[in-house]
């Protein structure tokens, strides 16, 4: 195989050939990618299921049936029940609300801060770049768990803060990646063309630089989502995230691990759903990168 990108068409060539916008163009290419569309479909289904949870299951996520205890999958409890006799399917459905929300919102926060920070530093360069990246280095050096614990101690433990706190930590790597990409992109002819046309720096960053680094950013973002979902379970386990009786995939998995030999279904089902979600995200991310970078 030839190296990817070797046959890259000149910028905006596609847009000139066919009279569609670059965005429509990308969507058209994405639709052709079966794996990506599969990923998108899975994510959509999961999102809809999590929203419809109260109508799908007759059980409550918190009501216990200690007499029943942990039971394997059965016609009453399709995915079995946990140590307190709570329906696992129900807990997974309600848990997906938190996990998906944490995954996407925290990633969005990271994306927003990381891209703006990295792009600014990379494009402006010089002293500004040095100062901004040293700030990133300093934050990197802060032990992340301690940082989040500090945030939680100061502001108390609530779910919105959890989103922000995780996002506020995850943006660091994003900023570095973006900066590296921007350094590469800003030497391209089309940026010089934009400069000679008299566009402001902000316009160049927004209209020319960022769209051209989106491929890498999106792939990295899809890798951030699973990270964040697992991070939430870690924080919850420490008592900083969500608390019982609420559930999330990460928590279900960490509880499932405790009893994986006796009650394997408590681990298998949540872990499977998490894995499927991660695969879907990766497929979608790959598809998006291909679709976007084709321009």
């Amino acid at each position, binding site marked *: 195989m030839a190296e990817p990108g070797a046959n890259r068409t000149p910028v905006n060539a596609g847009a000139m050939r066919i009279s569609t916008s670059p965005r429509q163009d990308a969507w058209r290419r994405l639709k052709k990618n079966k794996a990506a569309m599969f990923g998108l479909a899975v994510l959509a289904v999961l999102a809809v299921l999590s929203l419809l949870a109260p109508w799908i299951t007759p059980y409550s996520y918190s009501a216990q049936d200690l*007499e029943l205890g942990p039971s394997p999958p059965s016609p009453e409890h399709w995915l079995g029940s946990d140590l307190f006799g709570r329906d696992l399917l129900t807990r997974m459905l309600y848990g997906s609300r938190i996990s998906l929300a944490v995954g996407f919102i925290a990633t969005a926060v990271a994306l927003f801060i990381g891209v703006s920070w990295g792009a600014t530093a990379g494009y402006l360069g010089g002293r500004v770049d040095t100062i901004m990246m040293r700030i990133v280095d300093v934050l990197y050096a802060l032990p992340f768990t301690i940082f989040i614990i500090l945030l939680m101690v100061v502001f108390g433990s609530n779910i919105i803060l959890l989103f922000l706190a995780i996002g506020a930590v995850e943006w660091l790597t994003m900023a570095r990646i973006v900066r590296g990409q921007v350094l590469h992109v800003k030497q391209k002819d089309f940026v010089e063309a934009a400069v000679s046309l008299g566009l402001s720096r902000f316009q160049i960053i927004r209209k020319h630089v960022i769209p051209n680094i989106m491929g890498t950013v999106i792939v990295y973002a899809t890798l951030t989502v699973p990270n964040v979902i697992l991070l939430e379970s870690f924080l919850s386990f420490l008592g900083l995230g969500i608390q*019982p009786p609420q559930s999330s995939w990460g928590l279900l998995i960490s509880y499932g691990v*405790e*009893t994986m030999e*006796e009650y394997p279904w408590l681990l298998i089902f949540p872990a499977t759903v998490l894995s499927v979600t991660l695969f879907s995200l990766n497929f979608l991310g790959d598809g998006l990168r291909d679709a976007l970078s084709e321009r």
Partner: protein
Amino acid sequence: MITGNALKAVLSAAFLFIASCGFNYETNVESGTRQGILHIGNGDEPRELDPHVVTGRIESDLCLALLEGLVGWHPEGKRLIPAAAKSWEQSEDARTYRFHLREDAKWSNGDPVTAADFVYSWRRALLPALGNNYAYMLYYIRNAERFHQGEITDFSQVGITAPDDLTLVVELENPTPFFLQLLTHMSYYPVHQATVEAFGAADERGTRWTRPGNHVGNGPFKLKEWVLNRSIVVEKNEHYWDAGTVKLNQIVFYPIQNATTEERMFRAGQLHITNNMPVDKIAHYRQERPGALKIFPFFSTYYYLFNTTATPLDQVKVRQALTMSIDRQQIVDKITKAGEIPAFSYTPPDTNGYTATAQVRYDLERARALLAEAGYPDGTGFPGLELMYNTSEGHRRIAIAIQQMWKTNLNIDVTLTNQDWKVYLDKRDGKDYQVARAGWIGDYLDPNTFLDMYTTSSGNNDTGWSHRRYDALIARAGATTDQDRRFALFQDAESILMTELPIMPIYTYVSKSLVSPDVRGWRPNILDIHPFKYISLVPSADELSADDLSADDLSADDLSADDAD
């Protein structure tokens, strides 16, 4: 590129490597048994190693290795044996004890252990500024309480004297039938004066004297290494008077909070003895390795504390409603699952012949009525509660079950928070909680060890509850020698405790641990005390030792309170 053949070669090489690791690798338990190093799970990181500061089980096991009181428990936990004292006499009126110390007893730096060391140590334990939570354990000694409360400052008035280097005379306030048992407790352990004072004042907490290299003790082992959150290593103390009995060369204590992790480490040969075991694994061990599984009744109560200084828990009716609305039977049957006994009173049943007659009930109707009388009919207007526990999956499960019981039965919303052991203890001490999980292990076989905790002056009363008549009853019981009369007073006191309910009993523990068949001299007992000096390691096959170790099954009846050699 890797061709098919190359791939095969790489894979087989990798396989060989893994296989050879598997065959040659010696586990902790194998190498430990060979070298006399005991690997033991110890639950969590100790808060301190100072016997006059610490209160927890985690720390007391470490103190048991590093220090030695006048009297110790026989490894079977049934009777007391001489330790730092070789013999003693009791006066006719049972108020004065005269202890004779050993001539050959030495500290780990070679200094002799003298009666003056005990006088110094007990004075230190009572110094008001030290803030020893267990100071009340010494209140049985004449004037000790007044000294601790700061009413007298002249220690010579306290009933502890050393007529010569090897004689210690202790005068008691009242005849105390369990006094010798008290001496096995860490608050009566001696500390080395020169060492303590080299790093700070006698009444300064948390100085560096307990660090490796500084620590000096008189126990069978001495402190070698302390790596935070990793391990504490103690090694044989060659100056110990009975060093010939000590078989182990080293003990490595691991602060493992998670019982599942601990069980996995046990299975992988990383630990000889675990501190706990996951309930879900009990059935498996009963079937597959019954010799390694040690489950025995334990002189300890699992309960919740109510902070009675803040609303809504300052109302007795709220506390009663909460206590009546949990189904203890279901908790022990479905959550803890190791044969625990539901607790309806604070003292465990048959405490040296005492069983509380006052009991709390499981009565939902009454609970709802009480909550309504307290001003919260059907939970409306109830401000919500925060339930705090120290991080452990066992505590979490019980908390989740109780959270739901209160929600379903009383319509009360409870949030759960878990804290690291040290934070948890600090919050309890500072009454910075609403409901907190607690467990109390009897320090000696007498109802007093449970009941005197909730007197107003007790350093371990973290509930803010204070009841004059209760204090008076406990004091009167302390001044009574007749066992039946004492027990009658305790019954009255406990009935106050079980009506006022600053605490909510949940169940009586069983001790659960996994013990490698290599371990000898570890005897199950109701106090769950296992003096390390009698433990030895002998390589063995699983089957052999199963019979050897499960031979002696103890029940509470076998234990007599205070017979000593």
